[in-house]
């Protein structure tokens, strides 16, 4: 698989950070970076990444399916909305936010809107307990989220498009 030039450069940069005999350590950063750059992780990319870091494709799949921020084989939407329902958030309205988001978007856990724009995921603690309930959209955190703030955030996503 040929990678877009910027990604190719990023790949060399990331792999170059590790000693050659430990280049497999570059696996997670390569995958995260590719996911962001390409919007999804394809089987071809899995094979390519495996080749570059010297592991077998099934080992790449092990990593992909282990980490919840990597999405494979099904890609998530351009805006990935993650709502925490773990203890702190559960006590402060997380489940209600989750219900609301489901209804508003017409999506369930790990579902993607037909246009591929928005996806929804119920996640475990995202480390923002002090500011619960918390949600995360792509890499952005949103704290003390109220139903109104949620609506606003979701509406914004549509407009951002």
């Amino acid at each position, binding site marked *: 698989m040929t990678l877009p030039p910027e990604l190719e450069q990023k790949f060399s940069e990331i792999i170059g950070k590790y000693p050659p005999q430990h280049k497999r350590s570059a696996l997670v950063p390569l995958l995260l970076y590719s996911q962001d750059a390409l919007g999804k992780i394809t*089987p*071809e990319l*899995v*094979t390519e990444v*495996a*080749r570059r870091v010297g592991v*077998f*494709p*099934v*080992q790449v*799949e*092990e990593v*992909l*399916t*282990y980490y919840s921020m990597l999405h494979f*084989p099904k890609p998530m939407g351009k805006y990935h909305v993650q709502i925490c329902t773990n203890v702190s958030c559960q006590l402060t309205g997380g489940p209600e936010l989750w219900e609301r988001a489901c209804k508003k978007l017409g999506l369930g856990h790990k579902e993607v809107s037909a246009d591929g724009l928005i996806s929804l995921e119920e996640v475990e603690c995202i480390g923002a307990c002090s500011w619960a309930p918390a949600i995360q959209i792509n890499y952005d955190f949103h704290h003390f989220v109220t139903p109104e703030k949620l609506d606003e955030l979701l509406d914004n996503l549509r407009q951002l498009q």
Partner: protein
Amino acid sequence: MADPVKLTIDGIAVEAAPGTLLIEVAREMGKEIPAFCYYEGLTQVAACRMCLVEIDGMPKLMTACTQPVGEGMVVRTETPKLAEARKGTLEFLLTNHPLDCPVCDKGGECELQDMVFRYGAAESRYVEIKHHHEEQQWSPVVYFDPARCILCYRCVRVCSEGMGVNALGIVQRGAYAEIAPNHTDHLNCDECGACIDICPVGALTSDSYRYQTRPWEMNHVGTVCTHCSNGCKTTLGVRNDQILRGNNRDRSGINGEFLCVKGRYAFDFNESDERLTTPMIRKGGKLEPASWSDAIRFVAGKFKQVADAGRRIGVVGSARTTNEENYYLQKFARQVLGTQSIDHQRSGDVVTLLDALAGRQNALATVEDLYQSKAVLVIGTDLAQQHPLLHWQIRANWRHHGAHTYSVTAGPVREDQHTVGAVRAAEGQEIAALEQLRAQLAAEAELAIVFGDSVKGDAVRQLVAFGDSLGIPVKYVCLVDYVNSRGALDMGLTPELEPGYRAAADRGMTLPQMLADEHLAALWVVNADPLRDGALAAKDAFVVVQDLFLTATAQRADVVLPSASLYEKQGTVTNVCGEVQRLKKAAQTMGAKADLEIIGLIAKEMGAAAKMGPWMADKVFTEVQQVVAGYNVPLPVLATGGAAQTAPPSAKIGVETDPALIRSARDTLFTSGTLGSYSRKLDSLLESPGSLYQGEDALALTAQ
């Protein structure tokens, strides 16, 4: 060696080498510390937490599978606290387990069952709905039932570390974690079944065995795999004369628990519908069923007629019959039929190697040597495809001892994964290419050289000269194709050499010469198929064929006699390293007879019974031990299922053989000459028939 470490286990003072794991020391003492993920020979993952032990001064329970011995350590392996911990672990393992023991293949020999039996974790406090995922078929061989899996990683490790295939992984996490094949929903791999055998539970099952029987309903017969020349010991599970499974879980024999796809699954040729079960005589141009007595009488009569008339008879022996049969056949040919025209399809230049070594001792490697030698050089062969056990040994040597592997091959091979010197050279160019490795090789402490059929004739002598010039101890393995290819040579199935590599007084015809001889009066073919890709010039020759199947040669025969397979015989075979092993009869096919008996019956009918001696494997082997140089091997070793290496001839052989006669069939992992073509299992595999020198490509790095 470093001083041993002193410690106390369950009140008993013991000593162990530094670095030894507690679980290993305990096993030595006869204490079975429960373990699922620990597996001798594989890396440690400490994933199951069954092996917990108490160690004084350590606040928590420790995993005996990763804890090395320490000076003065006081360890307890069975206490109420430990029983409680293990019980807890088992309770967790059973939370999502389907408990379908009554129908599970593993029932009766399941490690999880045994442990629950031992610790009594039958009651569960888990009342939620079990997470369940349907059983999947990954290949014509491998099935996976995720619900039964206890995530011990044994399958994953045996495939990656042991085999070098890396076809399995664990995807997802936590309660949802499960084993996954390399192609999303199916496997593309060696289909060796090692993962199935190593699974402590019934999560991985084989198509051949699943739902066929209960383990205690079978007889377990230890014999030798009938396919390639590596000669793996296999334990056949047999019920009512039907072979249901092949494995070697007791780790006995030269191969430990290793078997390739052919050893584990390609025994099905034995039950093929196409097996011959009645003798046939050609009448009016057609092969018609006949009784054994009629057929034997007919053959004996014809042989006598031809021999008495002084006309030419050719005898073609087999690389798949026992030493006893081969010996008996050549004796019959030479002494009763009075012909020196006896040959078989040769697949490696053993003769030139033995000649070049001229009686040198300790110059022939054993299968074990490939695991022990500090360095190994592989020439002109794709071992993982052609000699799976030898590949396994060399890889294990690298894994466990850091052995250096070198290769000179025509294309990529699996040893490339850990090679320290790989040279690509076209077939026939290997010896010249060796020079590139000279400096590296000369720096090794010792070397084992394994070479294929492209190194023959003078090239073999050059190779030995090269080995000598390195100035280090060198041992050799000359590769040959089939289970008794080596034995066929040892027993004198060539016109130029009598048993034990003694020069024949006068030379008869070679196999190609027999086929080309227009005046050949009779041709006797025992378990070989020379007409598969050859033609018989003598149109009127009387042809007798002994075989399991109606091969191309059998179709041309005037008399066809149904043979028993190697799984249905007693006797011995000699593997690629010259190691003799004893067969045990596991099954029988009604109507077929062992070739030894068939030859004996013909001899008797010709009035040569006394001259030939009894056609009993043991009796013939006694004669072989006396007559064939090098075969005076210790019988107790054979009797207990071991392998004993024969000694090489004590001097130069001094007989020229034609290298052109040497041609390997180049079987892959998924073919096996005639037998392979009657194995439905091999035939059904996605990977079949496979090809050589695909290296990593064959491992399907282009996944998905």
